[in-house]
C-alpha cells in the first residue's frame, strides 16, 4: 500500500470553488471588523485625548472585552446574532480591533510635538482645521502601525469562528482534523498566512505613500 502523501494536489483542484468561497468569507469577516473598529476608535480616541479622564476607563473596558476568550464570546453571542452567522464572528472581532486601535489613535495624536501644535494655533488654524490638517495627518504613522497589528490578528482570529460554524478558512482545519486528512489543514494555514502577508504589505505600502515624511523617523 502506498503511503498517504502530505498534500493531495488533486483534492485542491477538485475543491477549489469551495476554498475560494471560504477565502472570500474569511476576508470579509476579518477586515470589516477592522474598518468598523477604526471608525469607532477615531472618535473615541479623539475624546480620550480631549478629555484625558475618559481615556483610562475606555481602554479598561475594551481591554476587559479583549481578555475574554474569543470562543466564549462567540458562544454567548449565538442566541443574539444566530449560529453560524458572519455577525456572530464580526462583533467580537470589532471589539478586538478597537482594543488595539483606540490606544493607537490616542498615541498617534499625543505624538504630535507640542511646538507643532502651538505653532498651528499661532498660525491661525481653527480647532477643527487644526485637527484635520495637522494633528490627524501627523497621527497617521502610529495609527497605521496599530492597524497592521489589528488586521493581522483579526485574520488569524476568524478561524476560531469555525467552532461555531462560521470561520472562513478555519472550516478547513475542522474538516481536516475530523477526517485525519492533512491537505485541507495545510491549505488553510498557507492561505491564512498569505492573506495576512498581503494585507500587511498593502498597509505598509499605504504608509509609504501616505507618509513619505515619516520614513526617516523609523515609524514603519
Amino acid at each position, binding site marked *: 500500500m502506498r503511503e498517504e502523501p502530505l498534500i493531495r494536489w488533486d483534492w485542491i483542484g477538485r475543491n477549489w470553488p469551495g476554498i475560494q468561497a471560504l477565502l472570500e468569507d474569511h476576508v470579509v469577516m476579518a477586515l470589516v471588523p477592522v474598518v468598523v473598529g477604526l471608525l469607532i476608535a477615531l472618535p473615541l480616541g479623539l475624546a480620550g485625548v480631549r478629555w484625558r479622564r475618559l481615556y483610562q476607563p475606555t481602554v479598561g473596558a475594551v481591554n476587559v472585552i479583549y481578555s475574554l476568550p474569543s470562543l466564549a464570546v462567540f458562544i454567548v453571542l449565538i442566541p443574539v446574532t444566530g449560529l453560524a452567522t458572519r455577525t456572530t464572528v464580526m462583533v467580537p472581532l470589532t471589539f478586538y480591533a478597537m482594543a488595539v486601535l483606540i490606544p493607537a489613535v490616542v498615541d498617534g495624536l499625543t505624538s504630535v510635538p507640542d511646538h507643532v501644535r502651538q505653532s498651528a494655533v*499661532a*498660525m*491661525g488654524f*481653527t480647532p477643527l*482645521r487644526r485637527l484635520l490638517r495637522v494633528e490627524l495627518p501627523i497621527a*497617521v504613522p502610529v495609527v497605521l502601525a496599530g492597524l497592521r497589528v489589528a488586521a493581522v490578528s483579526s485574520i488569524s482570529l476568524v478561524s476560531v469562528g469555525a467552532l461555531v460554524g462560521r470561520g472562513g478558512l478555519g472550516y478547513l482545519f475542522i474538516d481536516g482534523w475530523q477526517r485525519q486528512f492533512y491537505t485541507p489543514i495545510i491549505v488553510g494555514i498557507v492561505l491564512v498566512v498569505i492573506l495576512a502577508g498581503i494585507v500587511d504589505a498593502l498597509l505598509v505600502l499605504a504608509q509609504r505613500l501616505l507618509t513619505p*515624511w*515619516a520614513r526617516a*523617523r523609523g515609524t514603519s
Partner: protein
Amino acid sequence: MITFDGVTKRYPDGTVAVDNLRLEVPTGEITVLVGPSGCGKTTSLRMINRMIDATEGRILLDGVDVKTIDPPTLRRGIGYVIQQAGLFPHRKIVDNVATVPYLLGWDRRKARGRAMELLERVGLDPGMAGRYPFQLSGGQQQRVGVARALAADPPVLLMDEPFSAVDPVVRASLQEELLRLQAELNKTIVFVTHDIDEAVKLGDRVAVLRVGGHLAQLADPPTLLARPADDFVAEFLGRDRGIRRLSFVSDEGLRLRADLTVPVSTDVSALRGTAEPWLAVVDADDRPLGWVAVGDLPESGTLAGIRLAPYGSFVSGRDSLRGALDATLLSPSGGAIAVDDSGRVRGVATREALDEALDRVAGGARA
C-alpha cells in the same frame, strides 16, 4: 504700535505670571523681552495674539483691543516664530511657508510663489522647497520658521526664543540674518529670550522682566549696560558690562595715525633712527602683515626677510570701540590697525588714542 495697558495674567491657582505690565512696542522696531524663567516673558508675548488671554488690562494693536478680534483672524495677521521652529513634519517646506496664505484663502499658485520668494529672502536654496522638515538642519528649519512667519507679510512679528535650540555658531548667523531682514522689512518685532547677550545684540529696546512678571527696566542696550535701574538688572546683565557696552560705541572719534606704517619693501637702513619703537608693516596692496620692533632690525636687507610680530585689526567705521580695544590687545606694540572695508590699512590707533576715546565713553556713562 503694540500697547500693554496695565496687563495682568493671573492663573486660577493664584499664580501671577504677568503683573500690571505697561509697555509700548514702537512700530518698526525690535523690542526684546528678556528675563529669567518664570518672569512672564512668553506669557506676555502670547497674550498679544491671544494664545493666552489677559486677566486684567488691555493689549492694543494700533489702538484696537485684541480682545475684540476673533483669535484665528487675529493670529493670521501676526507672524509667529516658535522655539524649535514648529514646522509641520508632514508638509513640504514650500507648503509649510505657505501655511498662512493657504489659511487666508489665497490660491495655491500664488501662495507657493510667495513661499518661494520668501525662502530666497531668508537665505535658503529654493531647491529645498520640495523637501520635508526632517531633511533640514536645525538652523535651516529655523530659517523656514522665519519665512513662514513672514509669508502673509504681517506688520507684526512675535518671536518666542526662536534661536535658543541651535548651536552658538548657527545662532549668531541667524541673528545677523534677522537684523539684515529687519533692515529691509521694518517689522514691529517682539522678541522673547532668556539670553541677555542676544537681547542686547538684537533689541532696539530691551525690556528686562523679573520673576513674577514685573517690568524691571525698559531701555536701549547702551543705556541698559551703562545704567542698570537696580541690582537685579545689573546682576542679570552679568559681568563685563563696561566692555560689552563698547560694542555700541562707534570708533569714529578714534584718532588714527598714518605715520606708523611702512611698506614691506622698505630697506632697513631707511628706518634707522626712527623715534617710534614699533612700525606696522604693510604689503604692496596696503594690507597689514604685522609689527616690526625698530630696535631689533638687522644690519641690512628689506623688511621682507624679517619675522614680524602679530597684529590685531578692526574695520574702521564698521566695528565698534570694542573691536579696536580687542585689536590693541592682540599686538605687542599696543597699536590697533584700522582697515577699510576691503582690508587696506587706514591708520593705527595707539594706546593713547584709545585712552582718549575710552575716557569719553566713561564720561558719557557718568552724565
